[in-house]
């Protein structure tokens, strides 16, 4: 396949960015999108130029590190996949492909396609945990049965990989899907109950502080989410937040 690639280049958070155009030939349909990017970088390095910086690590769709906005969609045209799992057979010979970074105020560009998503870590640090020390002397794992359905729902929420596609896809750059997934995981489990109210309040407060936008229920986040995190998590978080806020004002 022969492709024309329009790639976002930006030297740093304060620099002005621009789109660069590259022609790339000999692309195999069996390549992953990132292997195509490796090939582009090899070509750029051999020509004596600076390669395109992009985040990636596991290349099997689970670490959440890769983050490209491809032809106007987070992680490209596929559904339920990250950029690293997208294969070139999803494109056609002669295509022009536009590749941009996640764009959100809370995710400043570090270089080219690499952005800073530490805001997500700070939201988790605000309360995305159960306060239990690692004593090894907690109660037996089977002491509290958890109905399978509830455990499965908690698991589904917990599969979020923190990639930020939800934020990148949202016209308001809202992080509601990400935050609500973690809130839901613990809200659905008996172990999460003691801190349920303070957790949702602290996490939402931090989310707002980081500069993520508001949710207007368009659902773009759930469409682009590579892990299929469900919108109902947002509803659950709203409910929990409301309930916690009312109670804490007593």
């Amino acid at each position, binding site marked *: 396949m022969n492709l024309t690639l329009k790639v976002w280049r930006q030297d740093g958070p304060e620099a002005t960015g621009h789109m660069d155009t590259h022609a790339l030939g000999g692309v195999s349909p069996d390549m992953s999108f990132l292997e195509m990017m490796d090939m582009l970088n090899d070509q750029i390095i051999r020509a004596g130029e600076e390669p395109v910086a992009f985040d990636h690590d596991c290349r099997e769709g689970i670490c*959440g590190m890769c983050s490209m906005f491809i032809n106007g969609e987070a992680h490209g045209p596929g559904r*339920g996949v990250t950029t690293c799992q997208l294969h070139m057979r999803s494109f056609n010979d002669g295509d022009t492909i536009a590749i941009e970074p996640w764009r959100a105020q809370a995710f400043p560009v570090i270089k080219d396609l690499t952005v800073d998503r530490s805001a997500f870590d700070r939201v988790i640090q605000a309360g995305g945990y159960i306060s239990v020390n690692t004593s090894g002397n907690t109660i037996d794992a089977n002491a509290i049965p958890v109905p399978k359905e509830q455990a499965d729902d908690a698991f589904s929420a917990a599969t979020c990989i923190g990639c930020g596609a939800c934020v990148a896809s949202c016209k308001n750059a809202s992080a509601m899907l990400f935050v609500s997934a973690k809130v839901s995981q613990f809200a659905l489990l008996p172990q999460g109950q003691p801190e349920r109210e303070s957790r949702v309040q602290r996490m939402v407060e931090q989310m707002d502080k980081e500069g993520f936008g508001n949710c207007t229920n368009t659902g773009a986040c759930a469409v682009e989410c590579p892990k299929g995190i469900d919108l109902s998590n947002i509803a659950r978080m709203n409910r929990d937040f409301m309930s916690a806020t009312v109670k804490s004002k007593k």
Partner: protein
Amino acid sequence: MLDSKIPEGPLADKWTKYKDDIQLVNPANKRSIDVIVIGTGLAGSSAAASLAEMGYNVKALCFQDSPRRAHSIAAQGGINAAKNYQNDGDSVHRLFYDTVKGGDYRSREANVHRLAEVSTNIIDQCVAQGVPFAREYGGLLDNRSFGGVQVSRTFYAKGQTGQQLLLGAYSALSRQISKGKVDMLTRHEMMDVVMLDGKCRGIIARNLVTGELERHAAHAVVLATGGYGNVFFLSTNAMGSNVSAAWKAHKKGAHMANPCFTQIHPTCIPVSGEHQSKLTLMSESLRNDGRIWVPAKKEDADAIRNGTKKALEIAEADRDYYLERRYPAFGNLVPRDVASRAAKERCDAGFGVNKTGEAVFLDFASAINRYGKTEASIRGLSEPSTEEIVTLGKEVVKAKYGNLFDMYKQIAADNPYETPMKIYPAVHYTMGGLWVDYNLMTSVSGLYATGESNFSDHGANRLGASALMQGLADGYFVLPYTIGDYLANDIRTGAISSDSAEFEAAEKAVQERIDHLINNKGSKPVDDFHRRLGRIMWNECGMSRNEAGLKKAIVEIRALREEFWKDVRVPGNATSYNPELDKAGRVADFLEQGELMCMDALAREESCGGHFREEHQTPDGEALRDDENFAFVSAWEFVGDPSESKMIKEDLVFENIELKQRSYK
């Protein structure tokens, strides 16, 4: 020479007695002690969180943009624990025994027994943290079985167990970060360890975003930096996984143990072409339900390879379920090393089933049928049609392995619900690593190694679902105790200064190496060298090894290393974000580590576990150990030049297990 510091007494009492006897550090004193943890996978996150909870001041580093992204996240199948919830005869002793046997009797009894003892605590701890393990309808935890054992002791969360466990450890770590007890440095890489008066007292780190070098002093340093499978270029490791931290420690005096013990995982998606950047694992849990086969007739294999026949057209009688044939007792659930070699044997004999001839089938048809019948019976369907059974069976298989099947479909563009998967072995894990004593301390005072970065628990072959167990055991339950025994002597030391000549010299050496790489302006990108190294390693130090090949590899690696330093091209500069520079440093270390692996493989004149020397095999092609001469750990000491490293032996003493020819027949 090497003191493993294994406590005296009966095996089952060692750990308890040891914990009762070691020195403790009182809470007020912990506040004045600093510990650095490198890496935030299962071992690193759990260690950093636990040490911070105990009161130490912790600094944690990871090269990724968030601690949650460490490669433990990609572990699929599960985590072992001797809970015996299934009442199938499991016990601490059995887990211990299976692990030593599975490791082909090349691990330390005391370490493995301790691992089996704390395994049950891990599950309790993780459930308390909100890790959503799979459950049965009654609300209790579900288990499945894994290769090399005859009980169901594996806890899991679909095919994403590593993710859920890591997110559990990450949440514990996040809690300590929010309390200010852990200073988390992301996008930071350790460049060297710093020694003061014979003790490890800090590190030189590089901020990967700004390129700045930083000095971090501490009373002790813990490496939790994973394995070195990427020396093969193609592996199931993440792109950034590397040996550099461990290698830098090795060059400062930490011995590297059993470096040739590499695990080649039998079920990975085969290589599709020259462009391949990494390989993807299909969890071993699939072998619970998938049957592995190749055509029994060569002409069928040829026809499949050239596309004139499909798997489904091969009649049952013309299929060779070679694992079931060769190993009736364990069948498709033989340990990884055995399954991998058996696949290679069939493919080398010309029965491979993809274009490259390097693939075998993993078939779910009988599982779909079996589950479909059970499900039909549960639903009270009388005389269900074949289609109904298949539909119901597919639903069950989807619930168990859905994400793995999706992943396969995405990569291979083939539907595994309809036609068998194609799989082939790939590099997955390294049992070798930094030598540590019972305390997990390396041969350098104050420098610890945990998880995959050490060598201690898996011998020559790791059993499935044991890596997660070891990572969390080390980080949550072992290191936090053992490090106290060392740090108790440091309560009067006070803060360590990073203004010393030693820090100065270490930083200067790091800077010089970076400058060399940047200013070299050669003609070939880093990956060019990495790929070539990988090919040498895979061909000569992969699934089977022989003397001539290893000797050839050593010569080739030396030449490649020389060429690298002359001709590598690293674009950009050292004072801004430059992933190519990061990669260059890592490949430079692989080019030294690879040679040591070959030296170790050459020295070990026996076959054991993942190390198969062609000269040493039984008449039916199984690994032939030599317990008389090789029941030892080979710990390599760096003496200034990677080619000159010296081997020191730690004899392995088996007091509780009788050494036997491993048989899964």
